[in-house]
């Protein structure tokens, strides 16, 4: 695509559990659906874990995981444990 890939990082033990401690990935995608699909291709089944178990920070903004979230070239995407309060 000729664009800077997004830097995708798994935190909070996700890499230990699901990717053999591989924490960072360079992914070209226009939305979060594309990011999840790309990671699921590398580690089959990972996509479902990310959808069910994580919150996502895209360039620092924290969102619930949603396919529709846009990803800009060069974005930083962190999958972090899902957050919940009292």
């Amino acid at each position, binding site marked *: 695509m000729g664009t800077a890939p997004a830097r995708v990082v798994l935190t909070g033990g996700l890499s230990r559990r699901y990717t053999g401690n591989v924490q960072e990935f360079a992914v070209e995608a226009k939305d979060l659906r594309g990011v999840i699909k790309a990671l699921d291709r590398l580690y089959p089944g990972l996509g479902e874990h990310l959808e069910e178990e994580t919150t996502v920070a895209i360039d620092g903004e924290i*969102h619930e995981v949603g396919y529709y979230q846009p990803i800009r070239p060069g974005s930083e995407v*962190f999958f972090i*444990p899902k957050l919940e309060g009292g």
Partner: protein
Amino acid sequence: MDDIIPKDRAKPFKWVGTRPVRPDGVPKVTGLALYGADFAMPGMLVGRILRSPHAHARIRSIDTSKAAALPGVKAVTTSADFPEQKFEYVGPERVAVNFWHVTRNIMARDKVLYEGHALAAVAATSKAVADEALSLIEVDYEVLPHVIDVEAAMRPDAPLLFPDLITRGVDPAPTKPSNISKRLEFKIGDLEAGFAAADEIVEMSFKTAPVHQAYIEPQACAARFDADGQGEIWSSSQGHFVVRALTAQLLGMKVGDLRVYPAEIGGAFGGKTVIYLEPVAAMLARKSGHPVKIVMSREDVFRASGPTSGSAMTVKIGVKRDGKIVAADGVFKFQAGAFPGSPVMNACMCAFAPYDIPNARSVGYDVVCNRPKVAAYRAPGSPISAFAVESVLDVLAQRLGMDPLQLRLKNAARAGTQMVYGPKLSHNGYAETIEALLDHPAYKAPLKKNQGRGVASGYWFNAGGESSATLHVNEDGTVVVATGSPDIGGSRASMAIMAAETLGIDYDQVRPIVADTASVGYTHVTGGSRVTFATGIAVVDAAKKVIRELCARAAMIWDVDVEGVVWEDGYAKPASSNVGDFKPLSLKEIAAKRALTGGPIGAAAAVNAGGVAPGFATQFCDVEVDPETGKVTVLRFVAAQDVGRAIHPSYVEGQIQGGVVQGIGWALNEEYIYDSRGRLENPGFLDYRIPVASDLPMIEAVLIEVPNPNHPYGAKGVAEVNICPPMAAIANAIDRAVGRRLTELPMSPPKVLAAIDAREQA
């Protein structure tokens, strides 16, 4: 259409930021509001629960035959009636639900794991009959050794709650079971190099007592079942959709076969995000064919509902001489109660979050013990780790001879700061809370002998997520706003304000309600400080849809293209003189012509709200310590918090004051006292002492408004972060008053006196 909402204050808000009377106020002060215990139906039975007198015991047998035979008893239930659940963790790590555990918590199987653990229930025609029936249930227990303290529970020789619990998060996995459910770790930078570069290092250990949310209204619910398997529940909770989901799973029902109605709620603070009574009442209703109501006593609440964790922690922080923090390390051990799932992950993520620290690590342990399973409590986990971190920072400030606010300001996290859990912070707001207190006139006010001033800060994520809202325009032009968010802190007023502001109509033309699970779309719990943010976005989205429809109806009335109509200040107006010379139409006038123009006017909106901005709080307090008794009197409390934009400032101030009060109780008095057999000795408000008005000064809330651009009116969550600083602020104030550092909560008079005596002996 999005430009209907002003992006800055150039166009002043009419309702946002004002303080109208809350719509649910009159029924509450006149006693007519219906809480969970207030529902009654013809033929309704009284449900009562048999609870374990032992902290840990194997159930050899339960014989309910005599109870079932008692005249007036219509149903008896035990765990045998509930379907077994698969052992698996479902959902996100921090709040993963394991229904194998949940079903055992609401009704014990094989073992009782804490005093108060439910193990049978009856439904009878009166409370007296129900109580007699409970006394006829014969349980044969094999009493087992118990463990309550978190560090005692972690020892290799501790009594095991589960013989096959293997610690998760450790590589390689342990071969022996223990009470440690999980280990977790977050880390950035190079810890060793960071500490090597430090000029001052402080390492200290802390303990905190488990504390209860201490809501005034005990859990209560009523349930009924029809012969076709359709069930209904009325209950007081923080989320009736979650009540529906959990109850349906535990009873083996389809979600669609259960309808849950939200009652008014008399406090929750996280404790009503989980269920205890609903599946039991529903089971008794299904078995008896009658409606059944169960109400917890205060003793039940203390013995059987979830408090937050007690903890043991060690925190080490290194700084340069100029005050720059270069490294921080924390180990946090949390009680989970009888089943895994403490908020230790939150504690690890929040501990160092207010600060820009290049090298940091936080390690957490989730530990089961013979106490009720913990439940969420206001910013769950964060206040506990903040007590340790903010105490250590105060010691460092004293060693450096630096003002404690200036130390925090020097290290304040700002947009772009990397957090210990990975991403960069994307919102400001923390430094502004510190600057507000530095400028506060009372911060420099002189103190007397035995008085001290303490400072502390706190961080909470806040939350977004799934919410739904529906707006109906009534025939007379008034508007109903229905959401699925139980109103705990005045959210109906906030929803009405945002709807009125968006529609351009008066606040008192809007009637906000909390709708049941069949009457509005799925909405996640009122928790995580998410409602004004997420449900507020849904309300504004629905209002925008209504405006589009109102413009379309006006276009039809004027017989012009819809593009020729704009909505301003509650009126449809021609977009320009080219459209025509029409008198603006009010919402009321358009509603009157609804039938002619297409029928009823309304809209629904649903969101999965993202772009959450975290909450930061900084507080200072003045205390006076009585050297004769050890009693600590809080003389002044000033609490600054970044609130984004206060939609209804009175309720924002109320949240801040409430969080501070709960923090003061946590700091000074609240604790569970157990006897040698693991039985709670203080299950009531006479002996479990929460602050009352006469214990407290006026708490001054300082609202800092750094709007969140991801919310139409700039709102951020406001309900939780305020409870994070008080424990450390008070400990820091006590130290500065009498020169003794207390590291164990509560800092009750005997402990403070012992610390003073130790100083004098030294």
